[in-house]
């Protein structure tokens, strides 16, 4: 029973494709499977991975959030401005993350309380927040951030970078959360049938609010990681970030129509893309073909999955 479920899961397909890639890359380049490179890949995945936790929950409820990148941008701006205006490092980081939470809550209010479709709210917020980020920065970038502010990107605990810790801990906790906390289960319930959930006595507005607000928090953490790693706050920090996160989530098996998906799947999705783009550089495949290969591989692995499960409906 459980075995059958696992075999049918998208997670397995994506995992297998990834293992295939890893085997191929390590046979082709001895530098691929080294601690350093694994660290590079995991670091690259961290911000997308953390953000995809929130995105997965949102898409499971049947929603979408295209404002992720813009929220991340504002988080970066807040953090950078605070840090360069004399706030202590820890406070700047917390402030940045809280702004993420606050903006997520703004999305949440429009979606959960006023009932405006998520795509409209987040498309609107995407545009609006992008303009705000430019305005707050006055068009200037922030460079030379003090080292302590970059802890979320550069810090190490037990010789493992903080972003990797954060990703592992958050993914582990929220995977547990989705399976064992009643709230996690309600998120699936809302995505399967809002009406049924309401009738079962689930406070659907609260659930939706929670999901979008939490996603904001996750973008906040992702933003702190990005600023920490890049060391520079650009006016367009986070541009196109949302598409990468959505791609990872959907590639990992979360149904865009809602109701099913796992956080582990989303992480596998983002890992797959990261492994691929890292491996292509290691093999020195011409850069212009990168998109072609990534596109074909994503489509191919999902096609395998769909065909594998044919006839189950």
């Amino acid at each position, binding site marked *: 029973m459980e075995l059958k479920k696992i075999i049918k899961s998208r997670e397995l397909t994506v995992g297998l494709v990834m293992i295939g890639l890893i085997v191929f890359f390590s046979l082709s380049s001895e530098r691929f499977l080294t601690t350093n490179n694994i660290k590079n890949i995991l670091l690259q995945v961290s911000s997308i991975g953390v953000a995809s936790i929130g995105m997965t929950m949102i898409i499971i409820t049947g929603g979408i959030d295209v404002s992720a990148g813009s929220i991340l941008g504002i988080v970066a701006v807040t953090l950078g401005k605070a840090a360069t205006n004399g706030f202590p490092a820890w406070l700047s980081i917390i402030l940045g993350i809280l702004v993420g939470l606050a903006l997520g809550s703004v999305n949440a209010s429009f979606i959960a309380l006023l009932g*405006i479709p998520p795509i409209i709210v987040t*498309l609107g917020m995407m545009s609006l927040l992008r*303009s705000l980020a430019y305005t707050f920065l006055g068009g200037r970038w922030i460079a030379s951030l003090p080292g302590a502010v970059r802890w979320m990107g550069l810090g190490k605990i037990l010789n493992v970078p903080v972003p990797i810790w954060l990703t592992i801990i958050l993914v582990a906790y929220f995977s547990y959360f989705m399976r064992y906390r009643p709230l996690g289960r309600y998120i699936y319930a809302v995505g399967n049938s809002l009406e049924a959930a309401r009738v079962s006595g689930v406070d659907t507005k609260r659930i939706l609010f929670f999901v979008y607000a939490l996603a904001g928090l996750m973008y906040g953490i992702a933003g702190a990681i990005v600023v920490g790693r890049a060391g520079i706050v650009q006016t367009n920090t986070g541009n196109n970030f949302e*598409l990468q996160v959505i791609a990872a989530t959907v590639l990992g098996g979360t149904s*865009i129509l809602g109701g099913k998906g796992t956080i582990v799947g989303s992480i596998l999705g983002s890992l797959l893309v990261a492994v691929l783009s890292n491996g292509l550089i290691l093999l020195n495949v011409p850069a212009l073909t990168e998109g072609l290969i990534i596109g074909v591989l994503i*489509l191919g692995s*999902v096609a395998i999955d769909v065909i594998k499960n044919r006839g189950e409906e």
Partner: protein
Amino acid sequence: MMKKFLKLMAVNRSFFLFVFLIGMFVVFSFIIPEFSTIYNVLNMTKYGVEIGLLAFAETLIIISGGGGIDLSIGSILSLSAMVIGVLAGRLGVNIVIASILGIITGGLCGVVNGFFVSFLRIPPLIVTLSTMYVYDSLALLIAVDKWGNPMPVSNFPYGYYFIGQQTYFNIPFQVIAIFIPLALMLHFVLSKTTFGRYLVATGNSEVVARFSSVPVRRVKFTVYVIGGFLAGLAALIMTSRIASARPDLGAGLNLQAITIAVLGGTNIMGGEGSILGTLMAIVVITALYNGLQLAGISSIWQVGTLGIILIGSAIANIILSKKFSSVE
């Protein structure tokens, strides 16, 4: 009277946008003397054409339902533009043939999207996200010059420019000869023909449509192909207008096109939407951008204003329909 007016605003998206447009025109005319000149009004229309065609494509695709969306639409535009550019500019192919092949390329991209979506039943978001990478990459690859760098192509024959640069009494050729007829045609197809019926049926419920002997797969396939062709046509107009084919011409246009379709009242869940609504949204946004620029407002706030309008109109709609839907 007032009640009827407000109610119409609540239920009819196109009317809502129309009223908004009038208001905007009045305000801009007061602030900016140049805004409401005939020259400006006619001249700005050409900036709605290419994005408008993409928005029409998204409208049809989103209506088809089941998460229908095309993220690759901008990339198709880039690829089609490069095909025209490389064929005509680098390989010396006759410009008419190059243009036709460019549009066909767009159609073929749509065929690929449509095949994966409707026959392999892979979610549209994944398909078009993947093909977005693929088409972008192809556009770059065919654009490379002898140094290995992707470079724009600009040496089109002079006669090519009438499509995107000619005006008659200040009316741009592409508006009067391509955009308006096409908008009318698409409106006709969506609202008056059996294909339109099938499309709306499919978008409302794929299962019911299948049980009603609607050729669901063919319908879905067709909208992606139409989308590809429209993107190819937009590529033709754009390359002619700016006299250059670039592999990044369509960058960022996919989300803009989706935004316009959604603003025009297309339901992201499928089954609902109109060409007229999308058209009104295009006009609103084109006029808005033009007005803001003439008013000297930083271009940074163009997108911001769009965001405010998008959310604001949704809120207005909710307030209006709460007030007026129950009063029969």
